[in-house]
């Protein structure tokens, strides 16, 4: 599975007269669909930059001559979005790092070793991906509440609780996906290192880890998304505004009769940008990673 930059036409190569026309139609169709697909994102950024008067106009225009950062300023100043943004970033970073380390170790165990119950464990990771997380929020709420009486740093209204649950729910997929990347690395490299006298620890961290790193980057996108996009845990566990994260905090802008669309779009833009950056950085590995996750 190649990256997107590998261009190789499939199908009959000879392009004749009518083929040329149909190809042009195909090109135009693709461009139109691409524009329709990005339009909501364009509209989001545009609306975030529009002055209030233009947003609340019943005559919306797909451009603006008076771009302003007022909506962003309000989001950070009045609504305290800087704090929510930071909370989200802390939770997501911790989840990405821990999930990467833990899933790497587990993926190595599941690809490089043959042991009893290996298949059972793999099937369990698969099944775990289908469990409706929102329903599990019910027992998790009580669990987090009880944890709070023992370890206050992980109880209700703490970032610790969000780190724990998001870590748990990002692991099954991360392990499953990373397994494909570990599998793709020839075992002969480790054999060679072993013959040269390297111990297991060295093989794991000095040989295997750097080789799996690109896969780890792709996997981390999904862990990042799990934590960054999490709405239901944040909404349920975080009962004060100080520790709220972005998705649930966004609801602040929704008012019963008149929504502050400028604020909502500015906050949405802020929330989308980190994910977009992450996606573009690792897009090369995404497809091969998913391929590896689902099939050899």
């Amino acid at each position, binding site marked *: 599975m190649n990256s997107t930059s590998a261009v190789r036409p499939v199908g009959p190569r000879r392009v004749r007269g009518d083929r040329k026309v149909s190809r042009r139609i195909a090109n135009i169709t693709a461009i139109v669909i*691409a524009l329709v697909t990005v339009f909501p994102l364009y509209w989001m950024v545009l609306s975030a930059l529009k002055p209030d008067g233009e947003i609340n106009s019943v005559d919306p225009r797909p451009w603006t001559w008076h771009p302003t950062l007022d909506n962003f300023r309000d989001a950070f100043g009045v609504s305290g979005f800087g704090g929510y943004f930071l909370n989200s970033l802390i939770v997501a970073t911790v989840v990405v790092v821990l999930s990467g380390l833990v899933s790497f170790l587990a993926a190595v165990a599941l690809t490089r070793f043959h042991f009893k119950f290996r298949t059972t464990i793999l099937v369990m990771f698969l099944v775990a991906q289908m469990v409706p997380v929102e329903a599990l929020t019910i027992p998790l709420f009580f669990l987090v509440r009880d944890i709070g009486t023992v370890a206050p740093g992980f109880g209700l209204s703490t970032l610790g609780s969000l780190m724990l649950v998001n870590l748990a729910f990002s692991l099954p997929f991360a392990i499953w996906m990373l397994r494909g990347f570990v599998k793709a690395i020839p075992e002969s490299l480790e054999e060679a290192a072993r013959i040269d006298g390297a111990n297991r620890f060295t093989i794991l961290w000095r040989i295997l880890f750097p080789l799996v790193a690109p896969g780890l980057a792709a996997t981390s996108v999904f862990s990042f998304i799990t934590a960054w996009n999490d709405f239901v845990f944040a909404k349920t566990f975080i009962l004060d505004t100080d520790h709220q994260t972005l998705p649930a905090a966004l609801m602040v802008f929704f008012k019963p009769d008149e929504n502050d669309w400028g604020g909502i779009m500015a906050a949405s833009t802020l929330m989308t940008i980190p994910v977009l950056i992450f996606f573009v950085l690792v897009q090369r590995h995404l497809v091969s990673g998913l391929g590896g996750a689902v099939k050899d």
Partner: protein
Amino acid sequence: MTTTTTPARADRPASAPVRPRGGAKKTTAGRRRSWMPFWLLLPAAAILIPLFGYPLYQLGLLSFLDFGQPQASAGEVAEFVGFDNYSTLLGDDQFWDVLVQTVIFAAACVVATLVVGAALAVLLTRIGKWPRLLLLFAALGAWAAPAMTGSTVWMFLFDTNLGLVNEVLGMQGHNWFYEKWSAFALVGVVVVWHSFPFVMISLYAGIESIPVSVLEAARLDGASTWTTFRHVMLPILRPILTIVVIQSIIWDFKVFTQIYVMTGGGGIAGQNLVLNVYAYQKAFASSDYSLGAAIGVLMTLILLVVTIFYIRALRRSGEEL
């Protein structure tokens, strides 16, 4: 799980090996039999058993208890009521309504996602480099957009008074969320917008991985486009297709954020509830935690059936578990 009893199928790629199940690989077994894998799996187990396994068990347990507000906040002892919650649920018309509309909504989303994704994957193979890059990056953007922000943007686009869509269509004042199925359709559009890129990119990568020589050979043998597609490409793509279909079913059956945000927690008088949101609302809005848990258990069982098909499909396609 069942053993590999699936009969060999004629149209299956010949490469799918029949593996002996169970037991260690004989050649390396001696050196490999160690405690190493258990140490490596320990961190994952330390997180997943208390935070995934235990809550799952608690979910099942809750569904057999009478657990409401007094038990949740005053610490009253919950009474064991057997299958009472389930019989309450199965006797409730609203539950059946929600179940049916969840299935219809998920099925429509799955079909639309697959049709759009597959059509665009084929389109990608027939266009020039720049349109292709443009479409791939546009799809990447839709894929990356968080469910939350996707929901808010589409809500704004379809806003009753200030939305662009109503202005373009000259329907200002029309509320898309007022009518049940128009609200569902709108949420469905957002779900498809979020999920078609995964299908498109996976299938495109699959098509790209078919060796040109194979297609060339089919053409030289005089196969028509349709025959080539039906008898050459489809069998090769089947494993990817299966995975994409089942992943879509699992995702779309569990849609939560889009419904919750766009319809304000389940729509007017709960007309847009799906099972996931229904379970959440029963528990946290009505404080009927055990009933919510019972809905969660039923959902898990339904998805378990889908997953069993998934695992069988993976096995059939030669995936080494």
